């Protein structure tokens, strides 16, 4: 076991994958410096910096994967996928099906996501639930270093397209790059267990589609991904003081989703709060409620999500993104009712 930051863990898993498989390469804007350590070691063939042509190089990544390579294509911020969505929607997600299951697209799309550092609504979206809507794509949202590395390895090894979300509040270099810029005059609400943690010495892939129970509890189930998981943990401590025992589930992958483990928890608690930094409507939170309902289970349900465009103003931003207070409030509502 070693201690690593969230970003180090991803890089370390990537390095392990790259040294083990010549066909793995990274492509995206500025990767020669964003991934400078890998660039120094592997060079520009395998760490390939691209023009600002997301639809061009993401589309090329799909075909490169079809030709047998294992591209890790970086979309700098997931917000920028708007210009390149066709490659995911109509190609990566569909080619295996269209080919009658005969042609795989072993593509990883790595994109930073999330807010909490004052960059406003065009640069702080989450969109994981949005992308998971499209059948044929796997969607991963790790919340801590150990998961981040293990899931990156799994993503690279998968024969299916995987969209891998890297939360900017967890990744120190993104936080510095887009938020602090070397300043010590700004602060963030950092989830310490997400930012740094123990990781295995040699990475093993973490199966895609298995959630992780972060905290045991009996009264209520808090379900989240990414930074939201840590907000849930913090909320659960406050809830503890109010006599409420909250279980916290970190989905880790939202497509596929680990319904069995969710069911197990809800069977126990009968109450669910989904905490989702992605937009509230037509997304992850609704999907979870539907999946449980379809199982014929009865339960109370509330959600804490982003409900509108994320404002620039840091104060209003903090109110817009799911925060501990809102989670506690919703949990108490559910407990009270």
């Amino acid at each position, binding site marked *: 076991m070693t201690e690593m930051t969230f970003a180090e863990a991803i890089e370390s898993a990537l390095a392990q994958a790259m040294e083990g498989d010549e066909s793995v390469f990274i492509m995206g804007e500025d990767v020669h410096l964003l991934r400078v350590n890998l660039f120094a070691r592997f060079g520009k063939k395998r760490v390939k910096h691209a023009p600002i042509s997301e639809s061009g190089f993401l589309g*090329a990544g799909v075909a490169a994967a079809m030709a047998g390579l294992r591209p890790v294509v970086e979309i700098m911020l997931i917000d920028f996928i708007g210009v390149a969505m066709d490659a995911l929607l109509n*190609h990566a997600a569909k080619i295996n099906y269209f080919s009658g299951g005969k042609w795989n697209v072993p593509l990883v799309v790595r994109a930073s996501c999330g807010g909490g550092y004052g960059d406003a609504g065009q640069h702080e979206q989450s969109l994981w639930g949005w992308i998971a809507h499209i059948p044929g794509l796997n969607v991963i949202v790790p919340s801590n270093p150990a998961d981040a590395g293990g899931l990156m390895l799994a993503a690279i090894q998968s024969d299916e397209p995987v969209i891998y979300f890297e939360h900017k509040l967890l990744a120190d270099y993104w936080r510095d790059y887009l938020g602090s810029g070397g300043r010590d005059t700004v602060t963030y609400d950092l989830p310490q267990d997400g930012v740094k943690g123990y990781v295995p010495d040699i990475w093993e892939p973490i199966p895609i589609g298995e959630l992780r129970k972060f905290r045991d509890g009996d009264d209520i189930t808090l379900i989240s991904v990414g930074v939201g998981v840590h907000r849930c943990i913090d909320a659960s401590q406050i809830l503890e003081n109010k006599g409420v025992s909250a279980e916290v589930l970190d989905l880790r992958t939202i497509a596929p989703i680990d319904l069995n483990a969710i069911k197990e928890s809800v069977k126990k608690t009968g109450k669910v709060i989904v905490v989702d930094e992605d937009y509230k409507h037509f997304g992850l939170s609704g999907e979870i409620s539907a999946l449980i309902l379809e199982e014929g289970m009865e339960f109370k349900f509330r959600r804490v999500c982003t409900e509108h465009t994320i404002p620039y103003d840091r104060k209003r931003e903090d109110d817009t993104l799911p925060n501990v207070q809102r989670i506690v409030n919703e949990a108490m509502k559910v407990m009270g009712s």
Partner: protein
Amino acid sequence: MTSKSYITICLNTNIVSNMEKSILLDMYRMMLRSRLFEEAVTELWEQGKISGEMHLGIGEEAVIAAVVSHLQDGDAIASDHRGTPPFLMRGIDPKALILEFLGDPKGLCSGQGGHMHLFSKEHLCASSGIVGAAGPAATGFALSMQYNKQKNIAVAFFGEGAVNQGMLMESMNLASAWNLPVLFVCKDNEWAITTPSEEVTGGELLKRAEGFGLKSIELNGLDIEEMHEALSGIIPNMRKNGDPHFILAHCVHKTGHFLGDPLMRFHGNFMEEFKEVSGPLMKSAAKRKGASVGKRANNIGKVLGLIRRSGKQMKEKFDPIIILEKKIKDQKEELNNIKEEITLEIGAIIDESLKLSNGGILK
């Protein structure tokens, strides 16, 4: 604005051939096979055995044949919505194609892709119904060739309308900046569905491609000889240097945009078809508010002009196969033999496919 009109193409077509006869006969075979195959497909489509939009490559066979005949093992093709000719010419099992068109589980893509979404991993052939997607796809294939140090090339087939699609332009830049062996083949038939592309295209496509740093050449895509000769130079060079090229090949789509193209239907039976639209059209054009009377007359004139203009592409003098037949009319016997042979082959393919798919008819 596209830079050559039909007329120019026609005038420029060599009518006496300089090329080795055996090559021309091979080309004839490829082109005719594709043509007769697509004519058989048309029949199945007419019978309702094929669903959805069926886009043919009739009229662009010389372009496809010239390119595909220069491909080797390991080369890749990314096709647009006119996938049948390249797939067929590349050697993909014709029965698998027909079965796919019939939606049969035994089809090339298990009946799940259909004619706009053909894929053969074995041949590195992919297609897509999204206009412009062939650009990034061929670029990605070429990237893998460069990555693996293969002496292969990747071909992107697309229309002149697609060159206004951002991702295609991005991919032209990518291929140029990264020096990837992509052959961008723009089949300029002057139309994007019902839109004359010159009306919505700024500048000239050849210059646009050059602006990306691509070596670019304009060719008469109706003349297999010109096409074949040019590609005999270009493709081996690309293998050597691994660099991208752009070809602007003028051609036609004889059957219109797709089977059942409303514009083309007018030519079959103008009065009957026009009757159906003219009522609402005239009624609408006569409504109180709107543009001035003169402008309205112009608007209707413009519509009629489009119908008239769309008929041009059906003319025999723009048919690459007829053009080739004229060139080698002294080989009448061989031509007839080839025709007979292919007719038989295709008849058998259709029969067998229908048998395999139990008639392939959707109740």
